[in-house]
């Protein structure tokens, strides 16, 4: 019997998106998007599957065990409709991780129960005036004679009008410093109505189906026990719980580009220009192979960072910030490039490629949503000197399980998340360690792998010297562009190590053990940071294009997993 909670079951629940008669087919998804609504039929299917239970740790009665599994499951939703992915799912997850990180046993039970009943949890951090500068958030939950009083406005909150509860980031005492804010878990079903005003819905470019609202509280009483954990812990809880979501969300968003690439191939196969199919044009093949390599690069980095939250939780502050900076940019650039293959069709809101323009719009929040990419850099910057003095000077490799895609993981250790990695960096340790274990190859792709990794290792050495010399004033938001650039270099080296070690640990696997994808991913990484340009070398390009077309034919995912997309039948390409 099929596991009722598996990725395969979810795939089959959701059905074939190319089939117009399916409830979550692209034609329904697009129609809902045009109406600016979440696809109701899709929400009901996800209720049947019980997707919300995936956001509740197993210790609280749910099914959240591995972050990598959660990402893969959510990708199945994001491949079809990112609005459903965010509006049904990820929004509740973003709020819930605060509770798993800092909540009391009672608060955890309340939220677990709410999600297991398939209700929604909203997350109100944002105040448009302060962006990601959380320490300046003005919304108040100040003590009064009988508990707390909520005062102020929170904007752009998904699901606020229909959630049973909301996690609000609020000032719980006046003054400067870092202990003046807390998360407050507010039961929206029990508030005095006259103290709460809902703002009109915010209209958006992408994710049009996600109901984005806002809320103003006026002297609204809530019990003191609403504070998550200890009062004043808010900034700390935010920094810790964001480590989980800022790797999980980019990992999910990758599903958007999977479908973007699939739509482009499908449309191009059936379209003839200059006397041949578009997919037979060398330039098209090159763009498709580049995009495939981008997906493998992003998935290798995301998967390693997600597994790292379990295996090296203390270092998650560094690796997840790095993912947040790199992955959304690579994904958005990839979609932009694919649009050039589609030509005018990518711009049309009807026809067989119409889903592409929606996906391209829906992808944009990956860059700023929940946390801006630059916040990733700002998390890394103050950690650079300590990394330079410790982990990069005396490297300790990460455990091999970090890179073994099928190795079991311990439970998510929310209690071990930390403000900083304390200068440790297993990913960089594994870069050097892996290089030492590479045999001497006098020619061929293995020699090239060695040369590339040697170059990255020597770059790590120069980065270490530069980072050790950073003065304290260069470690904050007002740092110079040159200092910010050091974080880009660190992020690049981490991503390179992730790809390199995933390749090493899957030795013997038919595709992932082949150096071709690794060399392609490293090339794309250098293109991302402006160190390289131009197409992949021809032999690598051909290998990737062949694999890509085989996966398209077999209807398999374009990520590391190569999973069969069992809900999608191999739909014939449309006529030109």
């Amino acid at each position, binding site marked *: 019997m099929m596991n009722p909670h598996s990725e395969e079951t979810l795939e089959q629940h959701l059905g074939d998106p190319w089939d117009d008669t399916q409830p979550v087919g692209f034609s329904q998804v697009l129609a809902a998007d045009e109406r600016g609504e979440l696809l109701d039929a899709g929400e009901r299917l996800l209720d049947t599957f019980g997707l919300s239970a995936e956001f509740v740790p197993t210790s609280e009665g749910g099914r959240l065990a591995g972050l990598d599994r959660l990402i893969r499951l959510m990708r199945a939703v994001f491949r079809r409709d990112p609005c459903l992915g965010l509006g049904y799912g990820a929004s509740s997850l973003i709020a819930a991780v605060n509770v798993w990180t800092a909540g009391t046993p009672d608060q955890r039970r309340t939220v677990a129960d709410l999600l297991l009943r398939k209700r929604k949890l909203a997350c109100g951090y944002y105040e448009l005036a302060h962006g990601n500068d959380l320490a300046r958030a003005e919304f108040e939950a100040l003590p009064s004679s009988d508990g707390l009083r909520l005062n102020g406005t929170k904007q752009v909150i998904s699901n606020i009008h229909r959630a049973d509860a909301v996690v609000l980031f609020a000032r719980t005492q006046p003054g400067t410093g870092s202990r003046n804010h807390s998360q407050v878990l507010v039961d929206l079903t029990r508030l005095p109505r006259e103290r709460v005003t809902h703002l009109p819905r915010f209209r958006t470019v992408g994710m049009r189906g996600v109901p984005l609202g806002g809320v103003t509280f006026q002297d609204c009483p809530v019990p003191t026990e609403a504070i998550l954990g200890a009062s004043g812990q808010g900034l700390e809880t935010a920094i810790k719980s964001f480590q989980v979501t800022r790797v999980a969300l980019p990992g999910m968003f990758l599903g958007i580009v999977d479908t973007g690439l699939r739509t482009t191939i499908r449309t191009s196969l059936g379209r003839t220009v200059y006397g041949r199919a578009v997919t037979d044009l060398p330039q098209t093949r090159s763009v498709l192979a580049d995009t495939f390599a981008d997906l493998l690069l992003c998935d290798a980095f995301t998967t390693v960072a997600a597994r790292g939250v379990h295996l090296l939780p203390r270092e998650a502050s560094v690796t997840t910030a790095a993912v947040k900076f790199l992955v959304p940019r690579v994904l958005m650039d990839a979609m932009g490039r694919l649009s050039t293959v589609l030509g005018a069709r990518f711009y049309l809101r009807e026809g067989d490629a119409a889903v592409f323009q929606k996906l391209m719009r829906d992808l944009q929040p990956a860059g700023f949503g929940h946390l801006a990419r630059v916040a990733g850099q700002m998390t890394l910057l103050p950690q650079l000197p300590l990394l330079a003095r410790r982990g990069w000077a005396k490297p300790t490799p990460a455990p091999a399980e970090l890179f073994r895609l099928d190795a079991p993981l311990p439970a998510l250790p929310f209690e071990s998340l930390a*403000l900083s990695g304390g200068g440790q960096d297993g990913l960089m340790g594994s870069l050097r360690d892996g290089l030492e274990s590479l045999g001497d190859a006098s020619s061929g792709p293995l020699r090239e792998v060695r040369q590339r990794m040697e170059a990255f290792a020597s770059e790590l050495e120069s980065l270490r010297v530069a980072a050790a010399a950073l003065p304290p004033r260069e470690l904050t938001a007002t740092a110079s562009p040159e200092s910010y650039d050091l974080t880009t270099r660190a992020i690049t080296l981490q991503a390179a190590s992730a790809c390199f070690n995933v390749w090493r640990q899957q030795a013997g696997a038919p595709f992932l053990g082949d150096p071709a994808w690794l060399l392609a991913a490293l090339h794309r990484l250098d293109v991302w940071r402006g160190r390289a340009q131009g197409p992949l070398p021809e032999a690598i390009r051909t290998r990737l294009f062949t694999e890509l077309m085989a996966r398209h034919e077999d209807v398999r995912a374009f990520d590391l997993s190569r999973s069969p997309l069992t809900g999608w039948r191999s739909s014939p390409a449309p006529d030109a």
Partner: protein
Amino acid sequence: MPSIPSAEALSSWLSARIATYVQRKPDEIRADVPLAEYGLDSVYALTLAGDLEDHLGLSLDPTLMWDHPTIAGLTQALLQVLAGA
């Protein structure tokens, strides 16, 4: 085991350190003023925790700086950590 410095030595080490962060003279840094008043935001806790760890030879949670935002308060908290180490 790390040797325990005097409160006075620790306090003046901290003043000197903070002074270099904010590019002022050590005698301009008062022990009873919250460090935020000198323009140090929450991320300085990471830098200061790292420097303190190297100086004292022990492991610190950077949130200690958040809980004790003045040099005087931090000095007392550090002495307690050292006594328990």
